[in-house]
């Protein structure tokens, strides 16, 4: 499953620069709003679903080399966060639905936690 399919299926808004999302294949998924838990639990190349929208999510995503971050319930990262994400090549996506819904959808599409 590619990031491209996920964006279409969940109708996600791409907040960072466009790239060839059909070339990105997330391997796993992870949900948490606690950054240290993400640091512990999220696997390399995962999709991370969170309510957090402040700029530390970029540092976490970058250090873990995550495939993308889905920010739920329309939480809006500021311009500095988006700029930093672009610099680090991190994809930030957003949607109005909550983390439960997004995770359910991703599971339905076949993404697993491990």
């Amino acid at each position, binding site marked *: 499953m590619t990031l491209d399919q996920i964006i279409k299926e969940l109708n996600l808004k791409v907040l*960072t620069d466009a790239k060839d999302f059909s070339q990105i294949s997330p391997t796993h998924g992870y949900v948490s709003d606690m950054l240290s*838990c993400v*640091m512990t639990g999220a696997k390399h190349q995962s999709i991370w679903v969170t309510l957090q929208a402040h700029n530390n999510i970029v*540092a*976490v995503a970058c250090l*873990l*080399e995550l495939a993308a971050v889905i920010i739920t319930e329309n939480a809006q990262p500021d311009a500095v966060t988006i700029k930093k994400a672009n610099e680090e090549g991190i994809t930030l996506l957003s949607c109005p639905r909550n983390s439960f819904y997004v995770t359910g959808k991703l599971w339905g599409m076949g993404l697993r936690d491990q």
Partner: protein
Amino acid sequence: MAGSITRVEELAYILKISEVMSSQVKTLNPHNTMQDVLECMRENRISGIPIVDQENQSLIGMVSTEDLIRCLANQDVQSNLQKYMSTRLVTVNSFDHLTEALKLFAKTGLGRLPVLDEKGALTGILTKGDVTYGLLRALQHDYQEEEVRIYRASHLFEDIESDRTSLILRYTIQHFDFTNGGAASSKIKRALLRMGANAQLARRVGIGTYEAEMNLIIHTTNGGSIHVEIEPHQIAVYAWDDGPGIADVQLAMQPGYSTATEEIRELGFGAGMGLTNISRCADEMDLRSELGKGTHLTMKFLLTGEDVVGEGYTSKTKKESSKNDA
């Protein structure tokens, strides 16, 4: 996407038009005919020709394929080109940044812009193709620069002789500076990758250091400092602060234990997993703290097997072993 600037946009502000334009321009003079225009376009496979004054090389007009089509429709190729050339000229200066040309392309819909020098003489021509090619060349250059950086850094220790050589990186971390949270650990991770460390090791050091960095931001009185000592056989990360100190280190080490305030927790910190994470990432961890004095954290990452930093000569074995993996 407010406020986001891509590398390409950034390059458009750095590159000068003179670096991107074609400087060998086919030109004609006002005495030429439209037949000359036709031949010049066909021979050189171009779609626009600047018309210049023979004496002072100043630009008088432009003839484009559209002008030629009008002329052909009139079956008028023998006429002087002045009858069809455009004299309302849109030009750019060679010393301007590429972004000026991009704005003009967007505004006018033109396919090419004549480029003038400081004296106003024609010095080149800029097409959208030139812009694309120029940007690609600049991006390629960026890429090569990173390759050179990696090459240089990965050989760092190779030619230096001492009883024990190490490289020390120092970072100052400010209390409550959430804006730069993770900046030091990201830089450390990048440095290690440039020095030839494998991705797994760089990630482990990055994650461990991130937790230490956030602890300095969240839990100290005056911030602190992070020192990373890189040696061919190990990487040591030291995080120091001068207070307030941890009352019960053993309790602090317990997963889920946190003293973070509600405000900090709302940002997603304070899960009580930071120290747990550090001990998971590092090969050795040492935490010493005294109330009122401060905390010293040491993390050691031992390089084993094919792990290498700063030594080019071992990269050969690395390549061989990755071949074996495949």
